[in-house]
């Protein structure tokens, strides 16, 4: 996916351009409209740098345009000082830190058998999606659930607890904050407890995957309730299975990619074609079939519309040179 060998770094050119601009400005050469030719005449070393690469010239023109536009700010002089916005950063960080502490403090052992139906508990509300369907629900507390393809959940809310059972599939939770009313998710092998945060959770055959985009999430394995648990922070992905909990720090960006399905897209990064096919197959009735290991091992990257499997196959043909054959309900990919 990288293109370093083909592209000059914009950062380098823009930094050099800004440095040149500051130097020329120091020497009082930048008053009035931008005239690169005149600057080149005035400073031979600038001339040499500017004409070494077209990239240098365009970067300088970009910086000089911004600088020259800023001159219009002088019009504000008569209006007195420029009003300042309060600096928000620090208080926000403190608030987030405080929220994280609350979440941590509230960590308690999750009761097992969440849905054994305590007496007097309201009946669960059931929601599900069909293959290829993505649905968003807003619950009574304001929490928003986005259900991915082939997903089924039960929701039970009581006065002191909010419970969701993920029976199968994948859900993105945006949990409304309500510290006095914890939010519990039971997903078979994995259990999750939160106060207010955003994260995606997927229940696969033997593993529950939790990807956190905001806030703090407690994850535990139901098989090892007392010994296997973890706190997940933004950018972390936790995997709970019968053998325990494993945590991977993937970064917020990777988590965002992992959750792109909410926008109807899939993102891959050096992913073997067999895994790519499996992902597509979750969403489409037409199934991609990889016929041999050589093809399955080809790694690809990119972002795709998850419902356009035909276009993906065309691309595999044109971009990767694979053989593509269509049969009813399936598309086979093989190496020539």
């Amino acid at each position, binding site marked *: *996916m990288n*293109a370093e060998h083909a592209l000059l770094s914009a950062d380098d050119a823009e930094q050099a351009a800004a440095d040149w601009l*500051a130097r020329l400005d120091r020497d009082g050469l930048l008053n009035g409209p931008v005239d690169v030719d005149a600057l080149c005449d005035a400073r031979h070393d600038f001339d040499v740098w500017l004409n070494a690469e077209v990239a240098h010239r365009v970067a300088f023109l970009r910086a000089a345009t*911004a600088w020259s536009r800023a001159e219009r700010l002088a019009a504000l002089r008569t209006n007195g000082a420029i009003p300042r916005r309060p600096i928000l950063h620090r208080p926000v960080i403190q608030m987030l830190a405080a929220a994280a502490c609350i979440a941590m403090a509230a960590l308690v052992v999750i009761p097992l058998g969440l849905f054994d139906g305590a007496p007097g508990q309201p009946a669960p509300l059931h929601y599900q999606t069909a293959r290829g369907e993505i649905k968003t629900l807003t619950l009574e507390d304001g929490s928003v659930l986005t259900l991915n393809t082939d997903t089924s959940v039960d929701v039970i809310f009581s006065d002191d607890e909010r419970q969701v059972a993920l029976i199968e599939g994948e859900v993105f939770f945006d949990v409304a904050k309500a510290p006095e009313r914890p939010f519990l998710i039971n997903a078979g092998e994995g259990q999750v407890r939160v106060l207010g945060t955003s994260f995606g959770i997927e229940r696969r055959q033997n593993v529950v995957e939790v990807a956190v985009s905001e806030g703090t999430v407690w994850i535990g394995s139901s098989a090892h309730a007392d010994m296997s648990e973890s706190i997940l922070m933004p950018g972390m992905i936790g995997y709970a299975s019968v053998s325990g909990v494993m945590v991977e720090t993937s970064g917020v960006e990777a988590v965002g990619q992992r959750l792109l399905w909410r926008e109807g897209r899939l993102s891959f990064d050096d992913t073997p074609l067999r895994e790519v096919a499996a992902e597509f197959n979750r969403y489409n009735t037409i199934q991609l079939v990889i016929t041999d290991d050589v093809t399955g091992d080809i790694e690809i990257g990119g972002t795709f519309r998850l419902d356009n499997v035909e276009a993906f196959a065309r691309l595999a043909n044109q*971009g990767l040179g694979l053989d593509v054959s269509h049969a009813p309900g399936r598309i086979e990919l093989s190496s020539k």
Partner: protein
Amino acid sequence: MSKTVDQWFMDTVLPLEAELERFLARHWSDASEVRDLRQEVYSRLYKAAANGLPHNTRALMYSTARNLIIDLVRRKRVVSIETVMDFESWDVSSEEAGPFETVSARQELSMLRTALETLPRRTRDIVQMRRVQGMSQRDTAHALGVSEPTVERHVSKGVRLLADALAKLGVHRGAVISPANDREGERER
């Protein structure tokens, strides 16, 4: 000649920066490379214009961006599939924006002010003294009790941040902005 091309670049290409970056981000999966791609598109556009200014800069910009992505994809074995996938659906003419709106002097000023406010305090103070009060770098250094190289460093930093902030706001002086009728974006949804 280069003066004409420089002017064309500043007046016609730079105002399209936000639009160009959106397009590149949609068709290139690695967000960290979008700036490099944008820079390369600028260079290619500039070289093309040196042989004659284009009639339709926006159309040339999109086809240049598209060709750049195709070049990069062809050069790599590991393909950014979406880019190739979308070759078929890329109708560059459909990227042409609809009605334009000219930015008034007042809007321009308020946008500049917004951009200025995004700067870190020290850098903003120095940019303000240089550009709003019209003080020289030397006078600015004296007034703040810092060295001249420090002022120069803040000017360099300030201009970079300003250029980015202004591009994000999507407009350049006397230029046009396209309203939020991003058809490509809608199509993907």
